[in-house]
């Protein structure tokens, strides 16, 4: 049941290991809420001890698929069926189920990929850049029967984007008009440029390529070692956030204990909306791309709550408040599992993420666009078409929400 993959990924030459566990816990095991009377251990300096390597993959889709209607929990049978069908990377509301056989899954992705000019300079396999080998086993730790990570609003869906955000998005596309796929590096996404992978909170959620997070505690601090190249250092000393003039890709975090729950509040984010160009790299991107093409505003306030619910489980909950991007706040919950491979002493640290250090991807993209500008313009048009489609869907969502909220007022 155990697999260990060592990968060097394509142009960015990312080195990482993924220790995977396909855990099949007892049916109905503590889906929500703590085991009664259980308390986590404490560090020698008296803080609740959350240290260890955590597997953050989740079986739960970000948004509730339509098939579940308004149900908050699925049945055991539905869970078993979804697990069998490997729905881990299904996009929200998408019932087009994939097989869980890796080779079969790849074959399907390649078959539906946008192939053109095979063997020629313009050859592309958009949508199938990475085969399933790079992703974690679709059989995932199953600790929750929730039908969506989003628990508020109660419909299990991420709230619509504001008109201002959609306008900003449209403006980004207007700016890109007449530019090829890679006239220069800024035409590529933040992840391709090795600036941020998904950012917060996207990177805290289960990512099938590198699902582990390592928590290390010191007196007065919690450090969360992130798989994509940095350590989140969270002071617990009650000090105020840095001044508003300081803006960071991953914001500025402060933590506190509420009983055995670690609460982290993060502000001072950069405005990443303006960086939104094709490719990965949205703070709400990740294995289920909810907002693939949109960043966050400087107004983002992220509140995370880490609650140990039993010796092997950490409930991870976050609330996003960003009035410049979402019409209302939303809250999600997932469960992190102790990575037993690490617990057995077989992996004691995450490998470094040296992405920028070998980023021939950007060099080659720019050279490619200059070698065959027509193809690069075509590709830019294709990327824009996908974005316009998504933006129109978001606009419809907003209109529906506005109509519904008017009628209830």
């Amino acid at each position, binding site marked *: 049941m155990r697999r260990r993959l060592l990968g060097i990924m394509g142009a960015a030459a990312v*080195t990482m290991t993924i220790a995977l566990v396909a855990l099949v816990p007892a049916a109905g095991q503590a889906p929500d809420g703590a085991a009664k009377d259980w308390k986590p251990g404490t560090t020698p300096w008296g803080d609740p001890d959350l240290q260890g390597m955590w597997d953050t993959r989740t079986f739960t889709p970000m948004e509730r698929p339509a098939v579940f209607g308004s149900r908050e929990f699925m049945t055991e049978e539905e869970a078993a069926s979804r697990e069998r069908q490997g729905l881990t990377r299904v996009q929200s509301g998408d019932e087009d189920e994939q097989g869980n056989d890796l080779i079969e899954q790849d074959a399907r992705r390649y078959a539906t990929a946008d192939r053109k000019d095979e063997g020629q300079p313009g050859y592309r396999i958009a949508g199938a850049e990475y085969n399933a080998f790079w992703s974690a086993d679709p059989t995932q730790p199953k600790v929750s029967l929730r039908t969506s990570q989003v628990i508020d609003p109660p419909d299990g869906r991420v709230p619509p984007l504001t008109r201002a955000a959609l306008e900003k998005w449209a403006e980004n596309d207007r700016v890109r008009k007449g530019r090829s796929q890679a006239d220069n590096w800024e035409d590529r996404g933040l992840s391709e440029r090795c600036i941020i992978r998904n950012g917060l909170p996207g990177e805290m959620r289960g990512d099938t390529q590198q699902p582990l997070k390592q928590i290390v505690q010191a007196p007065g601090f919690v450090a969360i*070692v992130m798989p994509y190249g940095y350590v989140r250092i969270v002071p617990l000393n009650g000090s105020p956030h840095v001044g508003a003039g300081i803006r960071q890709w991953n914001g500025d975090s402060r933590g506190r204990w509420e009983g055995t729950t670690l609460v982290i509040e993060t502000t001072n984010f950069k405005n990443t909306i303006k960086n939104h160009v094709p490719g990965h790299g949205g703070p709400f991107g990740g294995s289920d791309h909810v907002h693939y093409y949109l960043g966050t505003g400087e107004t983002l306030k992220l509140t995370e709550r880490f609650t140990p619910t039993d010796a092997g489980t950490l409930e991870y909950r976050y609330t996003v408040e960003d009035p410049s991007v979402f019409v209302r706040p939303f809250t999600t919950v997932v469960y992190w599992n102790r990575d037993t491979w690490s617990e057995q002493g077989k992996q004691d*640290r995450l490998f470094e993420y040296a992405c920028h250090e070998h980023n021939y991807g950007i060099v080659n993209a*720019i*050279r490619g666009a200059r070698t065959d500008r027509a193809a690069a313009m075509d590709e830019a048009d294709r990327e824009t078409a996908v974005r316009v489609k998504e933006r129109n869907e978001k606009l419809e969502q907003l209109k529906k929400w506005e109509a519904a909220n008017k009628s209830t007022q």
Partner: protein
Amino acid sequence: MGTWSGGRVGVIALAAVAVAGVGVGFWLSGQPTAGQSQTFQAARLKGTDKPDLTGIWQALTTANWDIQDHSADAGPFPRLMGIWGAQHPGQGIVEGNELPYHPEALAKKQENFKRRLAVDHDNLNTVGDPEAKCFLPGVPRATYMPFPFQILQSTDKVVIAYQFANASRTIPIDKATEPPVDFWMGWSNGHWEGDTLVVDVKGFNDMTWFDRAGNYHSEALHVVERYTPVSANHLNYEATIEDPKVFTRPWKISMPLYRRMEQNVQLLEFKCVDLSEEYLYGGLVKQSTQ
């Protein structure tokens, strides 16, 4: 673990002994720390018997320009940068100041210096100073770059987070393992010798430098670092550098590390990737429009 990396490391270790007969003695005898107070007793990590090194630290040397003695200099772009770009004078951090290069290795160091700000799009990661490109700085350079770093100490692990390029190391204590692959920041294993945290680092690639002067190493680099508290607000830092492919014997650097005392001090993001793109890729755009 250890089944397939042990061979290479073993050969290197043997070579080190063979090449550096004198050096091994030097290394073993080099342990007592210059300037170390015999009486200072560091505060303990609460609830343990180990000294608490948690804090934000910074070296105050000009070694990032050149780990050897160096004079003031105009720097590479005086017309563009004025005194912003000038090399600061400084005394080196190398014990005895001499670097025991093999002759052909010294030639490569000089070539490195000449091409320190060159960008070669076909050899992005092997030509030019990695610092200028915002690459992970390696060890020991990360320690004496002009940026703070933070030590976060737990019971069985120490995390060191560096402001430059968001580099970091997770260092298990008393649980040494062999490097499974090579890394820009190496593969660190820690243990305590009295109040000194000793970190043994190997598993490097050959792409990081020691400084802007082009001092460099191969993938055979082996660094042993020693962090010793000498007052409530100072650590003494020593590192023994061994690389038989580049140097004829091991050599040693040392410097104090100062605790950053500002009430509100914290590491800030210096994710310099986006700041390096014009430098790294700008030439591609300009070339093609000619």
